[in-house]
């Protein structure tokens, strides 16, 4: 199945990825090729097959829901390229 320019633009927006006109052209061609290639999966009979999202069969691994100290919050905050105010990251206007 091929994908057109408008769809590529839409997907890029959903993925929060700015894209130049040239990039849109390039990706329209490349993604179409890749998705057309994936069409071959239709040949495989998967009726009554349960999909899997993991392979080792581990189930319901959980841990105690309890508060723990994090001893590197200051170092984490140092990594932000944004402004810090009152030990929090200050972001730009939403609108």
């Amino acid at each position: 199945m091929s994908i057109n320019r408008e769809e590529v633009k839409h997907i890029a927006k959903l993925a929060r990825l700015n894209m130049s006109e040239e990039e849109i052209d390039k990706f329209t061609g490349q993604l179409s090729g890749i998705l057309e290639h994936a069409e071959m999966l239709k040949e495989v009979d998967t009726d009554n097959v349960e999909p899997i999202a993991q392979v080792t069969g581990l189930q319901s691994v959980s841990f105690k829901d309890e508060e723990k100290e994090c001893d590197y919050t200051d170092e984490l905050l140092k990594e932000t390229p944004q402004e810090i105010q009152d030990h929090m990251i200050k972001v730009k206007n939403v609108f």
Partner: protein
Amino acid sequence: MIEHTIASANKGLKEKQFSSVELTQAYLDRIDATEEKLNTFITITKEEALKQAKEADEKGDFSNPLAGIPMALKDIICTKGIKTTAASKILENYTPPYDAEVYTRLKKAGSVLIGKANTDQFAMGSSTETSHFGVTKNPWDLERVVGGSSGGPAAVAAADLACYSIGTDTGGSIRQPASLSSCVGFKVTYGRVPRYGVISYASSFDTIGPLTKTVEDAALVLNTICGHSNHDSTTPNILAPDYTNFLLESLKGIKVGVPKEYFEDVEQETVDTVIKGIETLKSLGAEIIEVNLPLTKYAIPTYYILAKSEGSTNMARYDGIKYGHTTDDAKELLDIYMKSRDEGFGDEVKRTIMIGTYALSSGYYDAYYLKAAKVRALMKREFEEAFEKCDVLVTPTSPFTAFKVGEKTDDPLAMYAADTLTVPAGICGLPGVSIPAGFDSKGLPIGLQLMANQFEEGKVLHVAHAFEQATEFHKKKPPL
């Protein structure tokens, strides 16, 4: 001194033939002499290495075989206070405030970190050409790629830039570069080594493993890095055995399966070399049987639909806010996301995000993601059936030897095809290894791949070790 394996260096340290500082300095000199040609490292941690080596010497306890031994980490493994870039612009200056579990374990064993090795950006690629820091060259032919994504770590083991390295394998990223550069590249069962602190690509595929000069060395590293962790809920609580117990030389009673599907569309010299390798296994006592894995041809699309879907969600965290690159051209919040990601990600990462977002989007989810997840279930069943008939599978690692830099960069599907024979083990979480098995007429290395059922690392090590002991290919070094 640089030709030392972990085992032989450990012996030298124990017998005081040399110190860890001397060994470390020898590798730092070797890196100095080769880095301009090969471009193996993103960061060389000279000070840290010499400090750790000095500590190991002062302690003088080399009972752990990794103590005082210099190694390199793929630069997607977080190291506290040391830049970890994922070979990307978006994390170009990222310094993690914590260590990955695998590095914590290696440090506890007394390892010496010599540097952070190059990789494809976010481990997405098969040639290290998607690295923001330039391609790593193949030590056997500087016009060719060394493979990827763990191209840096492979060059480390192949060209004696340290005793060993640690890479990651999602769809072949340890085994394929090991094959292209002539070293041992070991992929563990999914969940066998904790992923905590390793930058994610495809979370249900990603594994961590060693690239070494011998199979014995791989076993020594696995002994330190394998096992359950409270930091990674996908590591099963199954005790890891002492992997050196599997290093046996006779293959009597071992059944080796040969799937013919792995020999189609493969370069003739590679086919011939692996067939010769199968003869060697037979001469060591193995019983060779034919097996069928007809779903193999669907592995590549299954892989890229699933891995790129998971990859697209993992890439969502890079938003220009919490850490990493941010645009200086933003008026409002949305601009920060859109522009920082555009400026910070390379083409292959963008393709991952686009394919993944598309395959997971409403209307296409069933046709792509869900379909591929069903084929994955069938492939897993097909392997389980094969392993009822044999202990290990033997195949070529890569359909072709090292290709020229730039040869496949404009054709994503041609690049994905480099992983044709390695993605099945990634899709099904199987352990596997690539070991040196010969050279083609151009003098380029050819690797032989072994795979076993989940958590059967021991069987892989056994057959790989027996093959290595009976052959000399692993001893040949690139003419650098």
